[in-house]
């Protein structure tokens, strides 16, 4: 069948629309979703199409409506929740930490909680310390929740189909800069993909090799994948062949895939827009270190958000983001 070039936003919307057309168990809720279609337009036009019963604009009561979603899931529905910014998890964290993630286990498998929580992450557009965080490690540290993080349109559609057909609680992250929505300017080219019209699934727990390379591996997730790609372009000018790996999924984490990819180059820069310490970059390094450090010719390097609140002003924010220039610089160090 035919495919079109889509943004992540449109691709994700297609998956949700497909499932909603065919299944009664899915409904959407979140702030302003009825009129605005969700932060990434994943529910764009759904208000008119599916009506206010299935596309529910909620009060600003995240503990209330995400907790309700968990209850509806226990009763056989599959709610799809829009939580615009991951910075807001602070007001509803218990539902994530203790309710939606642990009920299946605490009930010995008797109760299922199939629900999909869409959350936007990341900065780079001067929205300051309370609207620019990634915090993906915070949610991935919770046992009992799957955490996925597509960075292109093809994966966005396929992984959303997968999430919607999964019997578990999935946190589906999208970096705001990758989605291709109006308020973030012209979409980043590498986020766009050919997207098949029909439905398809992309399995969780497999890294994606975005670009083959032989000299150095650049690992990223969300927006930092695209910074890695930019860095790889830049490195290519120097004749350095960089492999770019997208983690795509934090829970489950494809540890074998990481090992296999890194082994191909023997040099590693891990990038992460989330805070450096106690996060994803550490887990990747630890995995390699405990499994087989000899696959690396040199110690790995991390390029991550330092452990500081995110500053508003552009010169400061740009200085702390894990941007392509910094990634390329570290890769060059490894090649020296």
């Amino acid at each position: 069948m035919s495919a079109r070039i889509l943004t992540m936003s449109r691709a994700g919307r297609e998956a949700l629309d497909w499932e909603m057309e065919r299944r009664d168990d899915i409904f959407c809720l979140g702030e302003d979703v009825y009129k605005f279609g969700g932060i990434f337009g994943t529910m764009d036009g759904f208000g008119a199409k599916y009506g206010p019963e299935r596309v529910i604009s909620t009060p600003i009561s995240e503990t209330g409506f995400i907790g309700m979603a968990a209850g509806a899931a226990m009763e056989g529905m599959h709610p799809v929740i829009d939580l615009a910014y991951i910075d807001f998890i602070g007001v509803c964290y218990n539902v994530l930490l203790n309710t939606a993630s642990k009920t299946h286990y605490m009930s010995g498998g008797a109760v299922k909680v199939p629900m999909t929580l869409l959350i936007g992450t990341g900065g780079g557009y001067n929205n300051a310390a309370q609207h620019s965080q990634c915090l993906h490690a915070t949610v991935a540290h919770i046992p009992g929740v799957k955490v996925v993080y597509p960075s292109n349109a093809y994966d966005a559609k396929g992984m959303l189909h997968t999430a919607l057909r999964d019997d578990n609680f999935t946190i589906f992250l999208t970096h705001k800069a990758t989605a291709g929505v109006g308020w973030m300017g012209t979409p980043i080219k590498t986020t766009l993909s050919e997207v098949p019209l029909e439905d398809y699934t992309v399995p969780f727990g497999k890294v994606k090799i975005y670009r083959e390379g032989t000299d150095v591996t650049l690992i990223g997730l969300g927006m930092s994948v695209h910074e890695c790609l930019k860095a790889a372009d830049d490195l290519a000018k120097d004749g350095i062949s960089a492999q770019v790996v997208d983690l795509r999924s934090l829970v489950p984490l494809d540890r074998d895939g990481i090992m296999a990819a890194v082994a191909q180059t023997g040099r590693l820069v891990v990038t992460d827009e989330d805070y450096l310490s106690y996060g994803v970059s550490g887990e990747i390094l630890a995995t390699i270190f405990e499994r087989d450090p000899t696959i690396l010719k040199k110690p790995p390097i991390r390029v991550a958000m330092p452990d500081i609140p995110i500053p508003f002003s552009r010169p400061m924010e740009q200085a702390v983001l894990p941007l392509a220039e910094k990634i390329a610089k570290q890769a060059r160090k490894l090649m020296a």
Partner: protein
Amino acid sequence: MPLTPELRRSFFEQMTLSRAFDDQMIALYWEGKLPIFQFGAGPLPGELHCSNGAEPVGAGVCGALSADDMLTADHRPHHVAVCRGVDLDRMAAELLGKKTGLSQGKGGHMHIYDPSVNFASSAIIAEGMAPAAGMALARRLQKRPGVAVAFIGEGAANQGAFHETLNLVGVMKLPFIVVVQDNEWGVSTSKSESTAIERNSDRAASYGLAGEFVASNDPDDIYEATVRAVARARAGQGGTVLELKTARLAGHFMGDQQAYIPEQMKQADPIPLYRAKLLRDGVLTEAEADAIETASKARMEQAMQFAKDSPYPEPAEAFDHVFAGGSEASDKQEAGAAA
């Protein structure tokens, strides 16, 4: 259903069964914990919050519900679970951490789930409020009947989830009842120290909900107030804050010395009071009442025996049920502590 003698007899049966559950669990709890107290010791480890004194709430509310209705309880769930008809054997086994437990030993006493009777519970204060409202919403979307009932303590009414959920219930006109069990205490803190107004049922007005207050800790009165709330819910007239004065006779949890409770705040035991009332009303004779109490104890002894006789889960079962449909935790086992 009117308040028939049969119904009232069943309240007494349920109250005594719930009490037998708690009394026998309390006795077992102290095994292995004396002379040196330690939460983790003995055949019934962990914290234990018993329902002694709150049985009228379980009996009266559950008596007014139908099989369709959905319940969430809190850290003190026994009376509600027993009166709802949660499988007694498997609940007892769960408290003892046995393989035959409702959660195969994964949950313990604060995490009682029995989907066959639409019962769930959890241990974070007010955590069950929003999920209960969501269950009600699910049923509406599914065009299936069902009222959701969240059981919380009066202490939980000062938690944000209370407010957010009730506002959502009001906006969405959901068939929902929150049962606020006012036993006067949240651990050592009295209601007047924690709550700016006297009655949480008055807070219903903030959400366009009905508020009802029952002062008696008597299952008949609780039943009738619940019947009204359920009727409103089923008629699409929205939710109710149903505050019920009740008692906490066995402390906050086992080990609580309750030195903070002054003499004048000592609470009455509702079971002998109800027994006397039923005798007075001619619903039961002394002999019948004795027989019910004896039967309740015996039934619970049987559940206890089932629990004690059941095997523990295998250690490796800890890794099951992390995810439905196969555990992706496995890759982590290797790297982790299971090694």
